[in-house]
């Protein structure tokens, strides 16, 4: 039975939800606000909330000083490339784990997840050395591969859970209807798993877009994405918070917009399988 919701209770719930939402969103909001302040106002004490002189000067300086377009292009290539490459590997992997599991499938899944428990810095040396040997340092190809690899366990896991929701009889029906394995995956499994695949793609794209550890350590100029672009405003100049904020805002804006438009898909993806 549904619990009766009194107007008073509803008001409290709504207020609480907004408060928590704002708390989570506050750092982003503050960054955006700071990006429109002058450097002096940015570090003013007490902090200024809305009553400052709004200026676009920081954006101008940032655009002048660095090649935003290149960073943006790199971010799109790295996030997009690693997502597509990851899916190409993960769809068949998840298919086999979901539909023809062996006795060790659960162990393999767990082992794959366990690689995410290892601190990334633990494998920085070997990967760095490998990159030097293979000449992949500061290359998009190298970064696409690394970003794909670090997110692959999550993609396989997500797809595995979606595929598990698809009744195996439907795939068997396709087989009886004369479909080859390729046709079964193409015409039956994939269309049925589209919501799952889409949310997996989105999540992976966001994770890859925001990934900083590997992009900062393995890139310099040519393959550096927006995370490196933000970082370039933090270290040498120390206290230029307004410009750092402007750079951050420019870096997160594309993914924030993407996330906003696909929030329905994302929520469905993250809660898929919870209720049938």
């Amino acid at each position, binding site marked *: 039975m549904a619990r009766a919701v009194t107007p008073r209770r509803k008001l409290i719930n709504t207020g609480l939800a907004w408060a928590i939402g704002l708390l989570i969103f506050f750092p982003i909001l503050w960054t955006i606000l700071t990006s429109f302040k002058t450097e002096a106002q940015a570090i003013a004490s007490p902090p200024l909330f809305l009553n400052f002189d709004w200026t676009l000067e920081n954006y101008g300086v940032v655009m002048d000083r660095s090649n935003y377009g290149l960073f943006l292009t790199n971010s799109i290539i790295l996030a997009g490339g690693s997502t597509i490459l990851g899916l190409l590997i993960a769809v068949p992997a998840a298919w086999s784990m979901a539909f023809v599991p062996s006795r060790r499938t659960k162990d393999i899944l767990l082992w794959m997840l366990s690689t995410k428990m290892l601190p990334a810095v633990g494998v920085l040396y070997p990967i760095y050395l490998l990159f030097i040997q293979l000449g992949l340092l500061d290359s998009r190809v190298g970064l696409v591969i690394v970003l794909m690899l670090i997110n692959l366990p999550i993609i396989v896991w997500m797809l595995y859970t979606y595929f598990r929701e698809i009744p195996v*009889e*439907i795939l*068997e*029906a396709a087989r*009886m209807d004369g*479909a*080859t394995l390729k046709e079964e995956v193409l015409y039956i499994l994939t*269309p049925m798993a589209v919501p799952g695949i889409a949310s997996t793609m989105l999540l992976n794209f966001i994770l890859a877009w925001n990934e900083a550890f590997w992009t900062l350590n393995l890139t310099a100029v040519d393959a550096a994405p927006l995370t490196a672009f933000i970082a370039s405003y933090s270290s040498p100049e120390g206290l230029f918070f307004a410009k750092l904020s402007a750079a951050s805002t420019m870096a997160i804006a594309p993914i924030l917009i993407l996330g906003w438009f696909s929030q329905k898909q994302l929520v469905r993806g993250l809660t898929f399988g919870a209720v049938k």
Partner: protein
Amino acid sequence: MGRIQLNQVTKSFGDVEVIPPLDLTIEDGEFAVFVGPSGCGKSTLLRLIAGLEDITSGHIEIDGKDATDVVPAKRGLAMVFQSYALYPHMTVRKNIAFPLRMAKLDQAEIDKRVNAAAEVLNLSNYIDRRPGQLSGGQRQRVAIGRAIVREPAAFLFDEPLSNLDAALRVGMRMEISELHKNLATTMIYVTHDQVEAMTMADKIVVLQAGVIEQVGSPLELYRTPKNRFVAGFIGSPKMNFLEGAEAQKHNAHAIGVRPEHITPSPTEGLWQGRVGVSEHLGSDTFFHVHVDGWPEPITVRAGGEVDMHHGDTIYLTPEADKIHKFDASGLRVA
């Protein structure tokens, strides 16, 4: 055409042998029903024929050709699943057309066959709907439509009616029988419902624990069951079994009498008992009669309106030539 032959087929899952060596032939155009209790291996057997499970050893021949290592898609069989297994993202038309698309037929031919199937199955008005918008019976029809368009060597049905309500089930049962008469294609039908088996089959295959207990026409199984299991499984309500003194009178370890082969009377008869639970069906009445010294009540069929009640004394007389005799191992003795 669709003659299906199994030679020494076995199936094991890990160390568990679910089907010991088994031989079976289903003739072209035959309606064969695999029947047995849950877990008797009937669905597994069907899936072995379909190719959805690999056989552990032995050979399967379809239409005279060895199909043992042929993938399901190439066996030329069509299957109707218990859950219907329709493609939820496709319309009825696309569902039915799917096997034809896979067979790379040209569009005109596909349209022609899909429309013909939809016509036969009364689906023309729903052809552009998706499975989610259809009732259970309609979904079942789509599943059948998807099976018939490709003109398979044989149809495999895996408990296709068990998700339908009782009234619909009777209707669909007749439709499938009708379909078999019209197409004259081999059909293999799996069910746990012996009424479905009796009403539809040319040949019934009774299975228990992966072993074929008996193969025969419905009436053969009814009249001359090979053993106690078949005797108890075929026929509704179940055959009554008696052991001990009553059986010894007939030189048997056990005897069986069907409820419809016992004549009840309020005044005279061979056995005397008390009426227990009675089930009034209108056309028939079934009495569960308690006889002193017998461990289980005897089920008796009487006419529709018999004036006997709980606790009344009742006399029973079995028809002498309808008594089945079994030895200690449960096998029929003549």
